[in-house]
């Protein structure tokens, strides 16, 4: 085939491409989100207001920060169940090191930096166990979920740390240019991770690992190193989530972040990332996050009880995944 005929056939496919774009997981999800917004707006006139939506952004931040690296991990076919516990441990370490009546009394900035380091270490430990010892990610992080939470409880001795200086709350409660401060942070991380995943060697390698790890190894990709890196990154982001969370709720407790892993995984999977690895995107994860948060909020504003809300969210999750699967199957059958 010559290059000119190849180009022609590329052009002929532009109609097919438009169709392919409309059938993309992210686009389908986005349309579903629009429908949800429309229905929820009918339920309450407070729902579709800028104030409310921005405020929801605050509640979404911690989940978003761990859902981004979770997308990387799930694309490689792994999972990280320990993110909630790492967040709890990092929060406790932050408070414990800073605590003006505690044993260390470090400056707040140093305490924050140290807690982030602890987060990275926790993630590194996960990655090393998975890669060097060969324990499956599910088992490894299930074990460290208990381990890190236990450490957090041991250090805190069930005492909370409060009374942080006023400026510390700026991150969790303040605004910048009218938008909650932490949302800017989320935006930056979304852009960075989206670019890494879609444009770099590293991102491409993650997809290759998730689709065929052996094939990736035979192609010279340092599978072990990359795997360790994403779990360490997940630990770091859990630490950052802890920082934002402490700043937002103005206290440190050892049970912080309990169940965070499930919220993050739900958003990633709803966003179209295959739980078996190999496909997915940051855009999808972001839509998944927003959709879940809007449902929670919109239903609450419409007067649905908390238990009712959970039932509806569960149902929507299953429906969304079924619809998406159906459309993707149709799309690949046509191809």
């Amino acid at each position, binding site marked *: 085939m010559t290059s000119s005929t190849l180009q022609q056939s590329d052009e002929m496919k532009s109609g097919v491409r438009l169709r392919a774009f409309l059938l993309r997981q992210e686009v389908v999800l986005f349309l579903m989100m629009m429908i949800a917004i429309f229905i929820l707006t009918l339920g309450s006139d407070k729902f579709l207001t800028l104030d409310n939506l921005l405020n929801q952004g605050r509640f979404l931040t911690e989940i978003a920060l761990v859902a981004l690296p979770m997308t990387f991990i799930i694309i490689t076919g792994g999972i990280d169940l320990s993110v909630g516990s790492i967040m709890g441990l990092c929060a406790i370490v932050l408070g414990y090191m800073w605590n003006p009546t505690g044993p260390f009394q470090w400056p707040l900035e140093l305490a924050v930096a140290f807690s982030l380091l602890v987060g990275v270490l926790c993630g590194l430990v996960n990655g090393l166990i998975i890669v060097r010892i060969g324990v499956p990610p599910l088992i490894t992080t299930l074990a460290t979920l208990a381990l890190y939470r236990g450490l957090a409880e041991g250090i805190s001795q069930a005492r909370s740390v409060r009374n942080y200086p006023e400026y510390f709350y700026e991150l969790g409660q303040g605004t910048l240019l009218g938008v909650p401060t932490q949302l800017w942070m989320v935006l930056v991380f979304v852009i960075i991770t989206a670019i890494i995943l879609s444009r770099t*060697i590293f991102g491409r390698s993650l997809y290759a690992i998730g689709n065929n790890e052996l094939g990736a190894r035979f192609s010279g990709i340092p599978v072990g190193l990359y795997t360790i890196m994403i779990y360490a990154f997940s630990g770091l982001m859990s630490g950052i989530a802890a920082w934002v969370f402490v700043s937002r709720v103005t206290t440190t407790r050892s049970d912080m972040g309990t169940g965070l892993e499930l919220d993050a995984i739900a958003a990633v999977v709803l966003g179209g990332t295959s739980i078996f690895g190999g496909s997915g995107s940051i855009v999808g994860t972001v839509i998944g996050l927003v959709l879940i948060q809007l449902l929670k909020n919109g239903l609450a504003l419409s007067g649905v009880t908390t238990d009712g809300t959970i039932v509806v969210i569960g149902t929507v999750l299953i429906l969304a995944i079924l619809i998406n699967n159906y459309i993707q199957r149709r799309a690949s059958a046509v191809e």
Partner: protein
Amino acid sequence: MTTTLELTNISKQFPGVKALDDVHFEMNAGEVHALLGENGAGKSTLIKIISGVHKPDRGTIRMSGQPVQFNNPREAQAKGIATIYQELSLYPELTVAENIFMGHAPRRKIGPLSIMDWRTAFERARELLASLNIYDLDVRRKVGSLTVGNRQRVEIAKALSINAQVLIMDEPTAALTEADVLRLFEIVRLLKQRGVGIIYISHRLQEVFELADRATVLRDGQYVGTKLVKDTSEDELISMMVGRTIDNLFPKLDTTIGNPVLEVRNLWNKPLCRDVSFQVRAGEIVGLAGLVGSGRSELAQTIFGFTPAQSGEIILNGKPIRVRTPGDAIRLGIAYVPEDRGTQGLVKQMNIRENASLAVLRSISRASFIKRAEERNLAKRAIEQLSIRAYSTEQVVNKLSGGNQQKVVVSKWLASKPKVLIMDEPTRGVDVGAKAEIHRLISELASQGLAILMISSELPEVLGMSDRILVMREGRVVAEFDRKDANQQNVVSAMIRESSAPNGTTAPEGVLQ
């Protein structure tokens, strides 16, 4: 003597290949009948037909004179046909007795319940093993904790527990130690005395001469002949196995052979790479022949850094190099087209563009960002250069034919601009047309000065393409032939001969040991 099993005019077609064409086979009670042939000659298909896994397209099967038809392995078992496959089919978490009586365990009644009768099971398992002169095996032990030899004995006992009249043994000694082999031979002789007919498949001709009464040879799915073992010789059997002419499928170009590019000295990587030394020169195609399991792929993967060498030297263009990962090998200019394109060579869910660039992402990116235009051009060039039949660079590789998939793998490694190209079974599972194209490409690459090491289980391919042929057996390079000296006879005999002393007077030239 009565004929226990008789197959006449058996044919079996699989999509794209004729696996068996008009094959005959017959066996008497109390006979050990060897089934011989190269890889892919149709032995496996034949035993699968006998054991009810496949149904023949044509032909009849008779047992004790009566025509029979097996719709599934259970029906064959019910008629007394038992198979011991290369990969043993036992349940490692269950006891010896449970495995022996799997599916037909002795039962007893407690009221309305029918439960397993453990005492009888253990007793009968012990009796069965004793009848094979096996007294050192605890029937209550889990099979997973047994040695390979003991597991095989359990398999044999299991076969006898269904009163097997015909026992098929597929490469039974492949994984056994010397002592276990001797015990297996004793058991085979014992079964023979009891009138069990045994179909014995082995690549080791010595064993055939030690055990078998008759030998039937298949070649390319066709029946070549049946010989009484006492009336034949190793050489005759070998020539029956390989006696086919090389067709002109191999457009080998004349090349000028230059300096050594890859040199390997005393390379060790146990268990399947033992003290290997050889060199490949610029423009040269070196064929690496050997049976499955002789260590050819292991050698290639050692040089490629997938399983780094334990000791020894790898020298590239005169400089000693260290290869610890495939990444090292790629950077140094060593490329490896792996044996299994589905699991090793490609990421099938990805498209042509992504596969073609996967091993060379570094060279088409700046600061770790993949340059998309360059990547697309790379894929377009690959499609043109290798005439890959695809509608666009974005086509998912999974939807291409086997031959086109293989071309994508080759293009992926050519993109890495290698100095040495190692190809492991480059035309396996590829149709005839694509095969010829790949052969032409290999030949062209060599004439451009690339050093090529080609592993192949297809003798005509090795003989037709190589300038020089190395033969591996049990992890060692045991023979080396020049293109002009090599023929099917001497290469095969180097592949399969057990001992260093060749049988008869036709010692193949160039055997090193």
